[in-house]
């Protein structure tokens, strides 16, 4: 069994992985570095012991995700309405590209099945594609999606943090899922 103090050098060496995760969510390198720093400090003072790498990962990400949620809540309180209202036009265009005038899939955008996604999760290259696709989303959409799916907040909580309506939140999630699955299909599964 390994204690947090013994694991600290292992985490320190892989700090950049944590920073990348935090930066994706916070879209701010300095804040991401701070969140990771606080996570590593909290990790050092923990009392758990670990037998396997997977346990360390679950534990350290549990701490980091809580730090990110705290930061987003703080930011939500400072958010001004104009930040929320950007990108509306882009979104309409994106829907137009996926669907025809009657609202059905275009022949070249109709989703087809992903072959063996489980296998893809084992590949580092898949995760780089996933990160790139998230980065291509508008900042607000990516924010809502990641709060929902990575930080596992529920929509009422996201709405109050970002000061949007739940209806609005569902619309954003719908459009983001459309865009993200399109990007991952195109950049990964269709080129396997």
């Amino acid at each position, binding site marked *: 069994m390994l204690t947090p103090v013994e694991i600290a050098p292992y985490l320190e060496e*892989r700090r950049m992985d944590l920073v990348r995760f935090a930066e994706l969510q916070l879209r701010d390198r300095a804040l991401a570095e701070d969140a990771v720093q606080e996570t590593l400090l909290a990790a050092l003072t923990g009392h758990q012991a670990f037998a*396997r790498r997977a346990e360390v*990962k679950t534990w350290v*990400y549990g701490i980091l995700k809580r730090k990110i949620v705290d930061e987003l809540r703080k930011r939500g309180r400072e958010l001004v309405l104009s930040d929320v209202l950007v990108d509306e036009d882009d979104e309409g265009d994106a829907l137009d590209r996926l669907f025809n005038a009657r*609202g059905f899939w275009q022949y070249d955008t109709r989703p087809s*099945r992903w072959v063996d996604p489980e296998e893809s999760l084992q590949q580092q290259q898949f*995760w780089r594609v996933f990160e790139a696709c998230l980065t291509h989303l508008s900042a607000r959409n990516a924010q809502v999606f990641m709060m929902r799916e990575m930080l596992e907040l529920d929509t009422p909580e996201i709405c109050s943090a970002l000061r949007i309506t739940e209806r609005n939140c*569902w619309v954003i999630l719908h459009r983001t899922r459309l865009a*993200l699955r399109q990007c991952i299909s195109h950049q990964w599964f269709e080129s396997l």
Partner: protein
Amino acid sequence: MMNCIHATRLLSESLERKLGVWERTHLRFHTMMCSGCRCFGEQAQQLREISRAYAPLGENKSDALPNERAL
């Protein structure tokens, strides 16, 4: 018949709230005939699983903890 924009919206919202009886009925009818929306529904769920699994940390197989090989 509902169109694919509407169907994908309901498929997405089904991950957020319980759909009403009519919504479910219309959606089932649509997805029975539309493979694109069936795939979308499946992949919206897979995106959720992928996002939850996303936690980069020393992804190389050889990248074991100091004493992990001995365990």
